[in-house]
């Protein structure tokens, strides 16, 4: 039994005959933040979707909290997912629900004994944490891109997950708003010791948050280690991904 909440063992995944991940192995220790870097289409988002069981590996093992994701049935998958939060690139808020209803949905479903007052208190707490306490009754379409990301983050955190998966937190946001999202992620990591896996192109943000970097290229894990370890490598190709511009 490994203590690492996320373990990839020789994972392979392809679509329509094209290999997207090719024998990728790594692990993420408890409370650690891993940033996955790489060019577009190198399998970064696929890696996150394998972790949460939205996709299944063709070969190899994806272990989350010591559970083999491929071996789990629907109920087992749901139990593991309760320990995880996922912030989508587009935030993926339910557009027919208000922001508060977006947060309340998992609370209602996962504990049907919770009173409406208790759920409201949790929702308010979650919205306050991301600075959206006045926007709970708005529909997602009435929010800016940055506010949608924050609402998505609040929804991902509302069940107090042990593991947070974040897909491109800075995409489509200006530098200042992206920095605000990074600060929120750092706060969550510090206060809750949440294990994080973040897919990003934003090396500035990645350097603020990450304990480790994983660099993917053409489906292969090209480099894995702390920022300092990777900085010390004399590899020009690697440096274009991890050097701050």
């Amino acid at each position, binding site marked *: 039994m490994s203590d690492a909440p996320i373990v990839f063992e020789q994972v392979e995944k392809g679509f329509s005959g094209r290999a997207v991940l090719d024998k990728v192995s790594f692990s993420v220790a408890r409370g650690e933040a891993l940033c996955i870097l790489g060019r577009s289409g190198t399998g970064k988002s696929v890696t996150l*979707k394998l972790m949460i069981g939205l996709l299944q590996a063709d070969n190899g093992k994806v272990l989350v909290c010591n559970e083999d994701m491929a071996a789990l049935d629907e109920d087992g998958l749901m*139990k593991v*997912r309760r320990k995880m939060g996922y912030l989508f*690139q587009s935030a*993926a*808020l*339910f557009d027919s629900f208000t922001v508060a209803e977006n947060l309340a949905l*998992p609370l209602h479903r996962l504990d049907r004994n919770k009173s409406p007052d208790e759920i409201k208190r949790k929702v308010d707490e979650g919205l306050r944490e991301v600075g959206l306490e006045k926007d709970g009754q708005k529909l997602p379409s009435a929010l800016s891109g940055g506010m949608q990301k924050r609402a998505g983050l609040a929804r991902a955190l509302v*069940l107090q997950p042990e593991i947070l998966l974040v897909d491109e937190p800075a995409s489509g946001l200006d530098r200042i708003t992206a920095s605000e999202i990074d600060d929120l992620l750092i706060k969550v990591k510090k206060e809750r010791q949440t294990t994080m896996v973040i897919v990003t192109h934003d090396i500035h943000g990645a350097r603020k948050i990450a304990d480790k970097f994983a660099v993917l290229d053409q489906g292969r894990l090209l480099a894995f280690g702390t920022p300092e370890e990777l900085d010390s490598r004399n590899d020009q190709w690697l440096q274009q991904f991890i050097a701050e511009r």
Partner: protein
Amino acid sequence: MLKSAFDSIGRVTLFGAQALRDACVPPFEGEYLLKQFYEIGVGSFLLIVASGFALGVVMTLHTRSTLVQFGAEAEIPVFQSLAFFNELGPLVAALLMAGRVGAGIGAQLANMRATEQIDAIETLSVDSFKLLVVTRVIACTVMLPLLTIFMDAAGILGGFVSENVASHLGWTLYMQRAFDGVALADFIPPTLKTAVFGYLIATISCFYGYTTNEGSDGVRKAATNSVVISSLVVILADVILVKCIFFLFPDQAI
């Protein structure tokens, strides 16, 4: 082509069977189901009533010109009620629902798939199939018979207005003639068959919306397929169900 058609039929059938099975297994999404009842039922009410009324007026105008030639205009109310109870009400209500609700369901679910909202539901440990599909299937199955009753009523009312303008026939006499010789078997089985139509419309529309993975083009295809296929299936199912009703209630076939 033929293989693909059979493949689609098989997949829709399994999808519909899963919806039926999951509808019987807790947890039940009561709050979301009520929302669907409202959106599907209340949202379609005006369309159904207005269409039924207009159809009732037009039907009477047509039958009047024919029946007058045989001196049988007194039969207009009962023609009207039998036509609406047996076929017009159920079929037109179902086709209207396929157009309004089917397209809406197909487009909405396909958009949710394209924008990763369905994936987001799954990541929150919520069963997206139960939340999105089962609730819509139940809502359509329950609401269509109720809407059909309103369509029948609006059609008969439209017929009365048309008759009243043409011959000054009074309300009481019109209603007496409309229900003279109409048995419960003329009303209940055809109304109940719309529950099957509602189930088919919702299942087909949900299938095309929920299973698409082609982005915005998938939304277009899902909306189109939902309307076209569910309308066609409703008409084909009507043939079978009418035969079943005639078999179970032989008096209806005479």
